[in-house]
């Protein structure tokens, strides 16, 4: 950073640096809680604070035992497996239906566009506890409560708004003459979709899919109500762990999840830049 302008007076300088220090403190508040669990997860003791050995950087104070516990404990493994089984299925459902609908919504003549949009976005607006309550009541009426299918359907519904929003945003910049050109060259609508339109809107579809995935992968309120013990996912297991007997294995799981979210964040950021470059906007 360049520092304050050379003509600044002393109070202005104090203000300039003071403001930056203030922002630094806020950033610390924002980031530190997430980063602090990373070293704590390597604690050799079953404590949630830094032991004297850890502060001395004594190798004795660090260990991988909580990670070992995560990878060997059947409860955590079952939870991981459930998460891996539920999230991709929900994502696939949300992305397929969501992309089709976003393409439909971006056509020039859609009857009742505002009402349809409001319905499709509503799962994002309604507080999760209300969605969970409603789904619990309704799914137990139709026999979906406590089933794998029920959880997948519920999670897909929660992920759909994100797919709709990202894909519609990508389609705004889509040049319609390309599909016309393709049609005039003899391609049928399906070929046009897969060969011309899909590659161009793919970044939007993928980032919508990532949002849907993270929604399902992170979701805990709805799965607690709609699922049964057989559908216990990672966040659910963490929730129970935090509420009942808090074990440091949670910190190891949390660290792994932070790593995953950093990966996802980087992917989305790269996709966003690529899509802006393709559309001729400045990459920033």
């Amino acid at each position, binding site marked *: 950073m360049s520092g304050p302008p050379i003509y600044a007076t002393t109070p*202005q300088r104090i203000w300039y640096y003071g403001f930056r220090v*203030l*922002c630094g403190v*806020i*950033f610390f*508040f*924002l980031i530190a*809680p*997430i980063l*602090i*669990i990373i070293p704590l997860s390597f604690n050799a003791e079953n404590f*949630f604070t830094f032991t004297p050995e850890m502060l001395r950087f004594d190798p004795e104070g660090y260990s991988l035992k909580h990670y070992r516990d995560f990878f060997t404990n059947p409860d955590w493994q079952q939870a991981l497996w459930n998460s891996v089984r539920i999230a991709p299925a929900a994502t696939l459902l949300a992305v397929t239906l969501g992309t*089709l*609908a976003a*393409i*439909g*919504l*971006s*056509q020039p*003549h*859609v*009857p009742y566009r505002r009402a*349809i*949009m409001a*319905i*499709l976005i509503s*799962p994002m*607006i309604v*507080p*999760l*506890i*209300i969605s*969970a*309550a*409603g*789904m619990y*009541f*309704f799914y137990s009426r139709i026999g979906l409560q406590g089933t794998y299918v029920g959880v997948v359907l*519920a999670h897909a519904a929660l992920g*759909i708004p*994100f797919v709709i929003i990202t894909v519609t*945003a990508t389609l705004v910049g889509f040049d*319609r003459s390309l*599909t*016309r050109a393709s*049609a005039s060259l003899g391609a049928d609508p*399906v070929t*046009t979709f897969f060969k011309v*339109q899909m590659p161009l809107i793919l970044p939007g579809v993928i*980032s919508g899919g990532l*949002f849907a995935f*993270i929604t399902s*992968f992170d979701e805990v309120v709805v799965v607690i109500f709609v699922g049964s013990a057989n559908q216990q996912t990672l966040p659910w297991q963490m929730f129970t762990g935090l*509420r009942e007997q808090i074990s440091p294995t949670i910190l190891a799981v*949390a660290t792994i*999840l*932070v790593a995953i*979210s*950093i990966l996802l964040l980087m992917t989305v950021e790269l996709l966003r830049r690529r899509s802006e470059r393709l559309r001729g906007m400045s990459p*920033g």
Partner: protein
Amino acid sequence: MTDAAADAPIPKPDAGDRARPERQEPLLAADGSPLKKSLQRSLRRQKLRAFGLVAPLLLFVLVTFIAPIADMLFRSVENQIVSETLPRTVVALEQWDPEQDELPSEDTFLAMAYDLVEAQELKIHTRLGTRLNYETTGISSLFRRTGRGVDDFGEIYLDQFEDLNPNWDEAGPWVDLVADEGWEHPAPFEPSERFAALMSETAAAYASFARAIQQGSDDNPREEEPWAPVHMALYHDLMRTDPGAIAAYEGPRAEMLREARAAVEGFESQPVREMFVAEEEDWLDPEVWATIKTFSPPYTPGYFLTSVDLKLSPDGEVVAQDEDQRIYMLLFQRTLFMSLMIMGCTILLGYPIAYLISNLPLRTANLLLILVLLPFWTSLLVRTSAWKVLLQQQGVINDTLVWIGLVADDARLTMINNQFGTIVAMTHILLPFMILPLYSVMKTIPPSYVRAAKSLGATNWTAFWRVYFPQSVPGIGAGCILVFILSIGYYITPELVGGTTGTFISNRIAFHISSSLNWGLAAALGTILLVVVLVLYWVYDRIVGIDNVSLG
């Protein structure tokens, strides 16, 4: 596939008419039909295609999401359990006026005996007891205990009939007497019309017995002796039927009826009310009956009244809830207060950050934005567990404070399981939702305005407060509504770090769904919360526009 209809001309319905004078013939399309019509057809086809693409998802969301919400709204007023479990009593109580401070008539007690004995065989009387217990405490145990003895109500008649003829306590003769000739067990029991015309109460009581055991425990009425209330009905019927009519009766087992009719005048009798009182004194309390009457309609505002600390009095009036049960207004107030606190904290912390980022060169700004987005992308439970670890009495913050010497080791701060914990953790979790809208508004404020103000002699503060700040207000509005909406519906974080004083209305909803099983109340609380959120979103849409929601 989006624009396969592109070969059709762009529809301009009036263009043809305007271009040519009216007297000329209408324009024709290539296939000879009028252009206007063919344009309309193509427009309709486009609409259909667009709708066809949207329809699968629309259907999906309607079934998986909108239907559950509608179900919840329905459950918040639905109350069919009383009229379904006690159909006869509900009808009998229609005549009764609770204001008179008298007990209901003997007929009502009789109706209750028939209803209750059927309900206990089907094992639904305890469910009804639980439901009514939400309104008047004690009804649950009253129903449960009476349910145990109700199939002996009328035992006095059973004994006398049995002494007269042991067949009266046998299963087979009863079926011969009452059943329709064509009836056989697996089919639902049907009384014979002939018998029902003569002795309606007995026919109804026996039919209700037979169907209840068929349905409740899959038993054959031919193998089960009827319960005592059936004999009570028989006694009532025989007493009021003319001996001549019975003498003329020609159905199966008519001789048993004639014999009983001749003897019944000398039988000992007992009012039904006494049978109830012998079981439970509380049946003499008019409030019990008034509660049943008040909640007998199929729909009730009762759950909503409870949600705002009111209740329907047994007389059917809206009155304040008992002092010791008023918790919901307190919870709503607390939810409101804490959401506003969280909103205020996110403005205080988010505004400087957004200001800094929007005034930095693009490259640095993007780097800092990633720091803002990282918490946004991190699992909610990771962040909540981080705060749980940090704020504990043996946690990192307390350790640091003790190490610095600010806090004595034996006086560690309690920062978790109270309102403070919830506010800190949720401020951290919702901060990105304040920074991002603020940033997107601040990015569009031209820096030249502030420079112009300064060149005209404004101090730094005046330039900021009079020129910059008013332009950033839309961002504050958007961020506030977003944070507020998200926080009033929060469940996980208050549940984990809120203890008892830092919980929200959503925690109460979850409690009623999974622990107290009062689903109607949970639905009513949820409906109120939903309405608040929808109104706020409507405001948000008016100010910012739903379409402007961006995802980082």
